[in-house]
């Protein structure tokens, strides 16, 4: 999630407007509609939530949640988590945890790679279930203007590509774009540690040739993929899921995001907290399958 240099620069300078003033002009909600402006469909999301996600959350992964009170009940907040698994189950589980356990359940916007928008099929489905492209402008609008919850995985593809032998070792946290977005929107960062995703969908190898042939992001070898076909992507092992929400990190001051040094420091700090949390949770875990 980094600001790309535009090919065609924006034109004439614009009269500066206070951003709060623009917030008043957000489009209203049309109740007859089934989709939001982001393309999110309550119907499809609810259908999936009550069937597949419910099954995995309650019976397959038996998810256990700690510190849900660290997710604010109102206002924008950036949820930052570690990321793993061939078709990562962690995003859906975190969103489900907020919906199930929180006193004020709110939808979570999951940021995903731009890749999905360009791939037939995914392009249709992904926005409908509450995913948005990980573009700084998207995150800012959601956090600041619409005051919603946004879930990011700063490891990005590097996290899902990593092999089983590297489990729970966090990759580089991008360039700190997520911290910048939170600071700009003055939204708190809530670090999240997820244990279980690595074992539920272990990746043993990556096949670059197949990746190129299919045009997919990556082509992993897992216990069930590719030999059980595409559905094998959903063939998760029943590892015990534990999700821990850590203390939020708040940014009250104006213009913090312009300090690149501070951004990097905070990004490292968030990464360190998640890594420490993960070590702590793994230390206490007696069994991969029973917790």
């Amino acid at each position, binding site marked *: 999630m980094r600001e790309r240099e535009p090919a065609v620069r924006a034109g004439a300078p614009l009269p500066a407007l206070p951003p709060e003033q623009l917030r008043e002009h957000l489009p209203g909600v049309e109740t007859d509609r089934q989709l939001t402006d982001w*393309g999110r469909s309550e119907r499809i999301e609810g259908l999936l939530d009550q069937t597949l996600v419910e099954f995995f959350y309650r019976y397959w992964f038996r998810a256990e949640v700690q510190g849900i009170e660290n997710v604010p009940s109102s206002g924008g907040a950036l949820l930052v988590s570690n990321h793993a698994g061939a078709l990562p189950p962690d995003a859906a589980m975190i969103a489900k945890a907020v919906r199930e356990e929180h006193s004020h359940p709110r939808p979570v916007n999951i940021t995903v790679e731009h890749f999905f928008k360009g791939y037939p099929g995914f392009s249709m489905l992904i926005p409908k279930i509450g995913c948005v492209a990980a573009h700084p402008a998207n995150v800012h609008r959601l956090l600041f203007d619409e005051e919603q919850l946004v879930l990011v995985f700063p490891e990005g593809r590097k996290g899902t590509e990593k092999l089983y032998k590297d489990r729970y070792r966090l990759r580089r946290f991008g360039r700190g774009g997520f911290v910048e977005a939170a600071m700009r929107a003055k939204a708190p960062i809530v670090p999240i540690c997820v244990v279980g995703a690595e074992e539920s969908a272990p990746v043993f190898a990556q096949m670059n040739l197949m990746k190129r042939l299919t045009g997919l992001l990556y082509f992993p070898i897992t216990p069930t993929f590719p030999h059980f076909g595409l559905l094998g992507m959903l063939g998760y092992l029943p590892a015990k899921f534990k999700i821990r929400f850590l203390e939020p990190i708040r940014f009250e001051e104006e213009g913090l995001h312009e300090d690149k040094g501070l951004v990097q420091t905070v990004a490292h700090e968030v990464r360190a907290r998640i890594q420490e949390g993960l070590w702590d949770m793994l230390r206490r875990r007696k069994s991969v399958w029973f917790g």
Partner: protein
Amino acid sequence: MTDSRRILVTGLSTYWGGRLAKALERFPEVEAIIGVDNEEPTVELERTEYVKVGAQHALLRRVVEAAEIDTVVDTRLVVDSATTTSAKAHENNVIGTMNILAACSGPSTPVRKIVFKSSTHYYGCEQDDPAFFDETMGRPHQPRTPIERDIVDAEASLDDFAEKNPELAVTILRFANVLGQDVRTSHVQLLSLPAVPMILGFDPRYQFVHEDDVVHALEHGVRNTLPGIYNVAADGVLALSEVAGLLGRPYAPIIPPWGTGIATGLLARLGLRIPPEMQNQLRFGRGVDNRRYKAAGFHYGYTSRETVNALGEHLRLHPLMRGSQPYRYEREVEEFLRWSPHVRSSRRGSDATGLSRDQLAELRRALSELTAEDSQATPAPAVVPPREPGPSRAPRERPAPEPRRPLQPGAPVDHYDDLESEEVISLLGSLEPDDLRVLRDYEREHAGRDSVLGAIDSVLARSGGASGVAPGRGP
């Protein structure tokens, strides 16, 4: 509220130019509206003056200076490549824009404000776009289609112009895809099909703007001073499947996601034209942030959903309704209605100060002689209406015609018989029903031309015995 009094509208014959000129005619504080284009206007205009110019608008500067134009509204940008060839579009979009800006520049230019109609095609549609483009964002990628390249080039020359002429207010309005019952765009055509074609596996996000909102947005830009760039798109971003649902049509994922170019080539042979800039939009879609123009005081009449619903209603009703005859511009009629002293002042623009041509004056006199013959009344003197006190600059004088000789009631009107039937018909609109009846009798006795008689009858029928001949004009 506004300091725009003398307005020049380019692209008068485009749907937008015509509608905007019509809308501006309602405001009494607007002194002069001059429309230029290389084709004739397609809407009835009350007091807008039409000047025919070449496609490159090379002589525009003289019009601007002579008429002391203070506001230029440029509605002429081609944003749909299905409407013309790319060479013509380039000529119009890039060269035309350059020439229009050149006409507005210079140390002594009277122009204070430029309003430019652009398109959200400026942003393009790509995989890694933000969900909502705002005006501060550039394009993530170089333009891929000729139309997008033209739009980017045209806007670049406007930016350049705005930078060099800081005392001028340059407003760029980027409009989203327009839908409406009167406007013809590729998207209206696509959505009018029995099923909405889509690319397999994609459900792009679409934002629309209603045709009325486009006119109001341009008007808002003219009546306020709003330098800068503004997106104009209705509230709400719809998925294309949702649009199909609102229209009550199935969607047909008939375009393959790979080899889309070849497939659209085949579809074009079958008569379904999908222009290149639309192909990307059908794949990736686009949303824009419309809040800045709302913050500048503009109110939308329709949301995207209401826009689609309005189109849907029109499409359902359209096959049942008989279309009315489209308006056709006839220069002589228009000039007569503008300038003739016989046109009753209530129907005439307040700034009509004289007569257009000597010939017309002559024709008019001939007719008044004819009608005076019966009613024994003196002919209406060539009235020069009282001059408006407002404008400081003196309007150019036009010679009022002097009656060449005193009227002799009962004498044969030799002028009248010299007239061509078209010339007679072009003057009928200004006559009272009684005069028309006289004229009809005279014509029947003398030349007896069917075309003239028919025209008189139709004018009489339209007036329905009312005091004035009032074809429904104006808003």
